[in-house]
């Protein structure tokens, strides 16, 4: 391995390391293992080599390329990259090259990062295993017979396999945290509005949020500070600068109130539960105070989510109609062309959610489904608010299980949906959460522990995450 991203950037900035050399290390690992893992939809080796050479030239000329100088990064393939295909792992976007960069892509570039490739995902980020990809599944680097989680499975696997130092994913109901847990890396879902969504292909706009994958909590913080902060191109972007996370990582957790949710929905495997208990003990030993809290509406999160997210998706994905870009299947008249294009272009899970969402918003059903789900969403936010009067952060498992075998749940959508039981409520509340690797469970597979925090409490969340990381690595 080439060490943490922070070390790479420091070395490249002070001229002691070459961005080109760093990159070649990573490209060599991609050459060796990518055919087996399939983390990427596209590897941009030539572009990355040019970019790395430019970074070295900048340093040679006395310029500072920025806080991510020479750091190899991967982007989930639902973030727009100018001139580079952006597929969302869907046939319907076949051949489409965006004419613009997403805000996060622009910010990474301004910070000196080197984009190595675009990673596989469940089609339009709908799924928890990266098996719903038009280009085939991604495999878990810890056990290639198993899934990496999803939907940002490619970005999680790319970091876990050492293909890149850090990567970006998007999290609508757990799509960063769950694959981070299954791949044994750090994954952050920032507060809604902390990171611009401009250029992120929308799945469920009120829930989607971009965040980093990294091998260390410090690297995740470093990337988050680069991509966060107000963006006028996104109306839901919070009008304030990125939180400063550089000092909080070493503060420790003395006196921090860590909440254990006593009415958490059951269903986590014993090996996962055991790691959560170990994490709570670790924090207590480090000086934190463990408190019991109740979040009664937590248990309704999954149901509310599977009405709200598909409803928004049914509208967001309506634009893929074959008229302006992407796939078009010709037919004799317009409505038939729409139907043929969408039948051919979308996979089963996407179609399932479009139908679910269309139904939930339909006249006569809106109040019973979508309208009720919005009420549950408010209840969840209210319940969290009450819990956070007693706790600074909450601790839960990230995923109920360790990585499961490829194909195990593809025929049972509901079993797949249960993967996100513990991650979904934070998306509904808009709060930040992070999954931190905390040892292994069955089959020596990674287990992640999730730290939840109130709106914009990323500094406290990172404090606790860093403490958990210290316990594992020391």
């Amino acid at each position: 391995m080439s060490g943490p991203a922070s070390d790479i950037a420091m070395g490249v900035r002070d001229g002691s390391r070459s961005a080109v050399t760093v990159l070649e290390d990573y490209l060599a690992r991609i050459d060796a293992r990518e055919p087996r893992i399939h983390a990427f939809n596209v590897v941009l080796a030539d572009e990355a080599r040019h970019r790395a050479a430019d970074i070295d030239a900048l340093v040679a000329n006395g310029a500072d390329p920025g806080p991510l100088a020479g750091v190899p990064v991967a982007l989930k393939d639902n973030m727009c990259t100018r001139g580079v295909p952006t597929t969302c792992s869907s046939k319907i976007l076949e051949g489409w090259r965006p004419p613009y960069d997403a805000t996060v892509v622009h910010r990474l570039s301004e910070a000196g990062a080197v984009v190595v490739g675009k990673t596989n995902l469940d089609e339009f980020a709908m799924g928890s295993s990266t098996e719903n990809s038009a280009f085939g599944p991604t495999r878990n680097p810890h056990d290639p017979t198993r899934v990496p989680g999803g939907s940002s499975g490619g970005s999680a696997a790319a970091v876990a396999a050492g293909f890149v130092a850090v990567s970006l994913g998007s999290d609508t109901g757990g799509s960063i945290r769950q694959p981070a847990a299954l791949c044994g890396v750090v994954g952050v879902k920032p507060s809604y509005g902390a990171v611009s969504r401009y250029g992120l292909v929308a799945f469920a706009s009120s829930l989607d949020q971009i965040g980093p994958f990294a091998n260390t909590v410090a690297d995740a913080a470093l990337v988050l500070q680069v991509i966060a902060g107000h963006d006028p191109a996104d109306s839901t972007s919070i009008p304030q600068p990125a939180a400063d996370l550089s000092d909080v990582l070493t503060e420790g957790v003395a006196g921090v109130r860590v909440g254990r949710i006593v009415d958490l929905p059951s269903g986590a495997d014993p090996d996962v539960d055991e790691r959560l208990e170990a994490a709570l003990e670790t924090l207590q030993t480090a000086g934190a105070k463990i408190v019991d809290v109740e979040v009664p509406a937590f248990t309704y999160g999954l149901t509310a989510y599977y009405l709200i997210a598909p409803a928004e998706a049914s509208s967001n994905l309506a634009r893929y109609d074959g008229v302006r870009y992407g796939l078009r299947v010709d037919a004799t008249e317009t409505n038939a062309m729409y139907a043929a294009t969408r039948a051919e272009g979308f996979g089963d899970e996407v179609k399932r959610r479009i139908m679910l969402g269309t139904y939930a918003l339909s006249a006569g059903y809106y109040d019973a489904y979508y309208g009720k789900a919005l009420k549950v969403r408010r209840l969840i936010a209210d319940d969290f608010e009450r819990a956070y009067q007693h706790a600074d952060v909450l601790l839960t498992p990230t995923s109920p299980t360790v990585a499961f075998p490829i194909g195990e749940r593809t025929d049972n959508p509901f079993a797949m949906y249960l993967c996100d039981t513990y991650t979904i409520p934070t998306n509904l509340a808009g709060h930040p959460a992070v999954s931190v690797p905390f040892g292994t469970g069955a089959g020596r597979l990674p287990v992640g522990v999730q730290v939840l925090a109130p709106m914009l409490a990323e500094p406290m969340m990172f404090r606790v995450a860093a403490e958990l990381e210290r316990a594992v690595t020391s």
Partner: protein
Amino acid sequence: MSTDGWELVIGLEVHVELDTRTKLFSASPNRFGDEPNTNIDPVTLGLPGALPVLNRHAVELAMRIGLALNCDIRPSSFHRKNYFYPDMPKAYQISQYDEPLNVDGWLALPDGTRIGIERAHLEEDTGKSTHVGGSGGRLHGSDYSLIDFNRAGVPLVEIVSRPDLRTSEQSRQYVTELRGILLAVGASDAKMEQGSMRVDANVSVRRPGDPLGTRCEIKNLNSVRSVGRAIEYEAARQITMVEAGDTVRQETRHWDEGDGTTHTLRTKEDADDYRYFLEPDLVLLAPEDEWIDRLRSELPALPAERRAALSEVTGKATDSEAVIVVTERGQDSYVLAVGEAGGDPARALIHVKEAFAAFGDEPAVPAQDLAALTRMESAGALTPTQAKAVLAEMVAHSGGDPEKIAADKGFEAMDTLALETLVDHVIKDNQASWETYCAGQDKAIGALIGAAMKASRGQADGKAVTAVLRTRRSTA
């Protein structure tokens, strides 16, 4: 076809394109008539990942419209209206739904009748489709279609009246009055022929006192005239149906300007389920009080207020044609200026069209010159016919001293006293005609005027004679 015994119930939905520099949710220019598909960007085309950002100036213009229509400005939100159409890039239109920006206002027709305004809300326009081949330029049966996205995302305000209009004439007045208000507040160029102001009419008929009848919505009304014609046709169609024992079906109908009829576009059963839901890419729009107060204080004089001012100085009724037309043309301030320069505003009202003739927007004659002319008329120094000739000379030279022009032309008018004496003589000499005229037979005035002209050997002005005769009759 008679509408006797029937009452028309009409509500109008008017879409106006706002006169902003850029689009409602992106920085592309909002400009009519450019090369197709040049004013576009990722947001306009609905490209994946693009997000809308609300144009503050569009909100300001929408608020000006609301204030001018006496609406309450409320905290509001945007929804998505979902439906597939090739010129709808996102397959949804961002529009205001259950929380519009402006609510509960009214518009006063020139005679003072108040027409309720239910709401005036912001939304984005669609692109423009051109269907080539087939029949009638419609999608169905065409060979292919071309789409211009320049119009997509242009800011619109939809102004929805309450069903308070009762005649086609009132409906025409409403549209005309609304257009005047939109121009006055600078919200839109409101050109119906270019589509920057588009009117849909909801029409139903009933026996007075009965509950509302079933309404039909009429689209494609591209002029004030077609608004009136379409409503008259549609009302007659519905009355014929009901009188024949048929029921009116709720539907959307298309006005055909060529054959002067409406025909079915789609029935209620075909209506889309728009699956409205709150637009998650935008935040709530709650204009702060200071903003509203500033706009209210900056609101210019509206047509009704200007007509009242014009009526006051000229003595003409606020809903007289001269007052309405001169205000509509924006020439009212000139008439007031003539009055302020010591002239006679009532006479200026007569001359104003001529004074503007050469340039349209700007008067050809300075207000103080026209004031001098009206003073000469009032003093009886010029007959109206002579005054017209002098004004023509002034227009040709962008002004001038009317006394000098009149002298050069050798004009001398009978003064008022002389004219009145002459008329009194004519009355005395033509008692039979005078009595017939006083009995209400207006035609008899011809003989009296003829006698006056003869007696003055053509020196008297016909209109002046008529005026004196009328005055004498009214005081007889």
